[in-house]
């Protein structure tokens, strides 16, 4: 009987298709990835086991670290509107150019009368450590604190523009003392904001 010859096959596979798919996915992920924004105040958030992600829009972030408080709200139209309102409220004039530049800033931490100087700076200079002293959180002579006004105006602006309520998140440094956090919670509670989020990083449940 003649032996059946099994044809020897090459082990090399055509990888072109695989390469195509891989590059397609790679392009997709690169394009969808959002670049990490530079932060004026770097904080080390505490860890927790919660798995709920922070929403992308209609959110204001109060960053607390080293006793300083920074404030930022998402969305350029909202930022513009907030600054206009604050300018009226505190009688500090801002030009249209200033407002435009302000709408590109992620967060800031200066009293409103110094805000113009920070807006005029270049992006890289703004985030120098120790440059921005933080937003005043104490109420002066019975008037509400500036942070209170910023939060309030941001809520009004979000309601006007997006017709949705603004979510407020507190991003605190793990080492921050509780009284500072308490001041902010009190400011929020004063405007009847009783529900807010605490920003944390991930931790495995043990």
């Amino acid at each position: 009987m003649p032996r059946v010859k099994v044809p020897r096959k090459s082990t090399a596979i055509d990888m072109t298709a695989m390469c195509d798919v891989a590059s397609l996915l790679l392009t997709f992920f690169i394009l969808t990835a959002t670049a990490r924004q530079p932060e004026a105040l770097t904080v080390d958030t505490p860890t927790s086991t919660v798995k709920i992600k922070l929403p992308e829009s209609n959110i204001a972030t109060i960053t607390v670290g080293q006793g300083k408080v920074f404030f930022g709200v998402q969305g350029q139209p909202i930022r513009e509107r907030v600054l206009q309102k604050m300018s009226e409220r505190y009688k500090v004039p801002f030009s249209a150019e200033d407002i435009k530049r302000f709408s590109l800033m992620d967060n800031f931490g200066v009293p409103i009368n110094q805000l113009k100087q920070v807006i005029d700076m270049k992006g890289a200079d703004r985030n120098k450590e120790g440059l921005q002293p933080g937003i005043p959180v104490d109420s002066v002579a019975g008037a509400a604190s500036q942070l209170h006004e910023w939060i309030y105006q941001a809520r009004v602006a979000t309601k006007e523009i997006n017709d949705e309520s603004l979510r407020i998140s507190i991003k605190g440094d793990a080492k921050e003392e509780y009284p500072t956090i308490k001041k902010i919670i009190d400011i929020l509670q004063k405007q009847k904001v009783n529900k807010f989020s605490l920003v944390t990083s991930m931790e495995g449940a043990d």
Partner: protein
Amino acid sequence: MAELNSDGGGGGKKGGKVRSKKQSTRVDMTPMVDLMFLLITFFMLTTTLAKPQAMDLAMPDKDDKNKDEQLDVADTRTMTVLLGSKNKIEWFVGLADNPISAPTVEDYGKNGIRKAIIEKSKDIKASTGKDMIVIIKPSDKSNYKNLVDILDEMKITNIKQYAIVDINTPEIELLKRDGVY
């Protein structure tokens, strides 16, 4: 310029004896694919993991007009957790001046406060038939991490009723006595 290298690939017979070797157009793509998948993995993980988590916190409604209006809860089913300094916790069941279970200083984590919470909530459930209420009182010496940690313990131990309340003087005295203030 316009002349094409006509005898290039085919190794044309006419004219020359120079036979250019037929080269394969195939490239080994294995390293390229390796690199691509590495990058894909990197971008996938960074996009989903870098997003911060949000822990929702609902505070009790605070009314400036009628401050005295406090909600009374049975002291038999409340556990008070005081957040002291040096990452320590002191807890007791009942009232501060007349505790049902004596104040105990505890660490954070699964062998510390979590054990106590689970045990006490079982006891209270068995004796009163209702769920335990946890009152969190952060002192001025505690930090933000402590607050997040204890809230996280609430999530882990599945305590449904808890509140963050301001600390008062007898409780600060208690912390001082045990050296965690």
